[in-house]
């Protein structure tokens, strides 16, 4: 019979190969799903995985869709590595968008090149401050940051509802619960940088975040402290790591990055503050962080794969008339297989002959 045997060290080869295996397994299982729906499985897989990579528009849109996911996931991964679980990035994303957006709207209609940087700073601070709540509560009273950060998402959502139907509502918007459009307010808008691509400052920031995170995690003392704390909190303490500082720093970084992601999303692709602009990036980013194995480059790739399934999934809906639910199942399969094949990097399969007594 087959037996799983723990590897002494996780296998580097399998760590690299398993994502590919998972994608292949998803294609096969997904093929069956689409065949059961009466669609040509090969064509369906092609539309989802290949077509978006072939058109310049969808290629650049993958970056646009992935940017907030990657930006948030990069921040989360630092905390996750140290065993600090910020589950409330969605709330920090929203608060960043509100605080940065509010700063911009406060200056309406003043124009100036200083405005967007100021808004981005306010966005980062908004997300940072929102993440400091679970951080300080954990440091001071030992509360569970998972619970506190998650619950604060709902507070942020309701706060957003209050702001867009109150102080931040567009006075010329027929009473609809929305802010003014940032796209119509030049200095406060996060514009398309290369015509026809949709690439905006948030995408550039995402690339910067990936690089900086890589350097921090591999070359900087902070990265060492994070990794050490994750592996052995006790050893970390002996090495002089102050766990309270680490909590504040990792939650603070992830909050600030989520806040900036929110600000660039709302001033760019989303265009205005509404109750509907948060579409769950903060939660999806948790999946992206783990798919990317908490490694900056892995997260970058995972974010792109995630974006690919969204964009390809939309294509499949209108080209092949596949229902949206089937696309969700397909995405679920991909995540399932990615996590399932993970077992191969930590375990090896051995054939053990049954012993007869």
């Amino acid at each position, binding site marked *: 019979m087959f037996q799983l045997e723990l590897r002494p060290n996780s296998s580097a080869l399998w760590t690299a190969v398993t994502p590919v295996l998972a994608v292949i397994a998803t294609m096969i299982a997904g093929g069956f799903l689409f065949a059961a729906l009466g669609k040509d499985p090969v064509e369906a897989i092609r539309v989802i995985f290949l077509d978006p990579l072939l058109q310049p528009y969808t290629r650049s849109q993958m970056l646009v869709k992935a940017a907030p996911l990657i930006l948030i996931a990069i921040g989360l991964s630092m905390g996750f590595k140290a065993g600090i679980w910020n589950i409330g990035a969605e709330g920090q994303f929203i608060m960043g968008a509100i605080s940065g957006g509010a700063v911009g709207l406060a200056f309406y209609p003043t124009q100036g090149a200083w405005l967007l940087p100021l808004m981005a700073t306010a966005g980062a601070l908004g997300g940072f401050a929102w993440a400091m709540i679970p951080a300080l509560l954990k440091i001071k009273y030992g509360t569970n940051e998972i619970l506190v950060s998650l619950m604060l998402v709902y507070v942020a959502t309701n706060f957003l509802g209050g702001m867009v*139907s109150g102080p931040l509502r567009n006075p010329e918007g027929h009473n*609809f619960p929305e802010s003014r459009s940032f796209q119509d307010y030049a200095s406060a808008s996060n514009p398309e940088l290369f015509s026809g691509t949709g690439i905006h400052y948030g995408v550039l920031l995402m690339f910067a975040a990936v690089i900086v995170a890589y350097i921090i995690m591999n070359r900087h003392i902070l990265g060492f402290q994070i990794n050490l704390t994750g592996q052995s909190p006790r050893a970390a303490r002996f090495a002089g790591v102050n766990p309270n500082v680490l909590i504040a720093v990792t939650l603070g970084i992830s909050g600030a990055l989520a806040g900036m992601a929110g600000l660039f999303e709302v001033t760019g692709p989303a*265009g205005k503050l509404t109750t509907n602009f948060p579409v769950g990036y903060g939660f999806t980013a948790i999946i992206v962080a783990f798919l990317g194995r908490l490694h900056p480059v892995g997260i970058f790739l995972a974010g792109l794969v995630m974006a690919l399934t*969204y964009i390809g999934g*939309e294509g499949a809906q209108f080209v092949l*008339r596949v*229902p*949206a639910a089937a696309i969700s199942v397909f995405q679920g399969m991909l995540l399932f297989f990615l996590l399932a094949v993970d077992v191969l990097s930590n375990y090896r399969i051995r054939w053990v002959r049954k012993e007869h007594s």
Partner: protein
Amino acid sequence: MRLMKSLLTGAALAVGLAGAVFAQEKLKVGFIYIGPVGDLGWTYQHDLGRKALDAALGDKIETSYVESVPEGADAERVLTQMALSGTKLIFTTSFGYMDPTINVAKKFPDVKFEHATGYKRAKNVSTYSARFYQGRTVIGYIAGKMTKTNTIGYIASFPIPEVVRGINAAYLAAKAVNPKVKFKVIWVFTWFDPGKEADAANALIEQGADVIMQHTDSPAALTIAEEKGIYAFGQASDMLQFGPDARLSSIIDNWGPYYIERVKAVLDGTWKSKATWDGIGPGMVKIGAFSDKIPADVQAGAKALEKGLADGSLNSFTGPINKQDGSVWLKAGEVADDATLASMNFYVQGVDGKLPN
């Protein structure tokens, strides 16, 4: 030899492509939906309209849709992908698609767009909506006649003109036949959230409401009404199956005829950007079959109202009507103009409570 071969394949390909172009002469018509087609409310009715289009013009057109598209950035991407893939007429069926529709329309001047319930138009962007308030006049009349406690509960989504207009129309109709009637309004700040809608229904029932009206999309309130043995109405679709005893009637959105008319206009080359706001008369709003719980004389009264609104001999807003603060809105015999209706942000006299802002 090799050259010959590639030339031949080239020729074969060219022939194949020409054939493909020839076969693709069907007009591609796209829809984007805010919810799943199975929501049995707003999106379901739009999809019925699409199916009516297929049935009527299926030999000349090809329809496709993408469902559950969040408003904002995702909508813009989906619309762009549709336009890039050769769709020539796109119906965007939610208010929040307004800015994305306008943005994409700018980039694709040869693609025609039809945006539901918005107020921004362009050379290639029409808007369309239905005079749902006429339906509310009819069911408001029924509610006023059927209530024993003289308390009607109203579940409202957002304080936008569309919803405020509905409350006013229903109240005026109920008040006209039942001077003692009171309206209790709960704002849930969502279009679709079965949990919140059910909570609101329960709260209204506790406050003495025995008839519930709603301007939200799920059948949750109707289900609660069925449980508690009180009355309610179907919204957007008939919803009879959710409350066979509770449902008195319904306001049904009927988009099919409009969709057929507009697609025909594109096929004839007579399509022009315009604003459409149709009511019971042209059949965009339909009143669902009356429950046999409604006495015959009330049914006859409701029928007469429906007929009068359809032929224009009656208007939902005919003076004398005062605003809530007591100031005169319409003098005796005066009827409301569309501009005021489109930006209505006040309650009429007699509605309790303050309009949230």
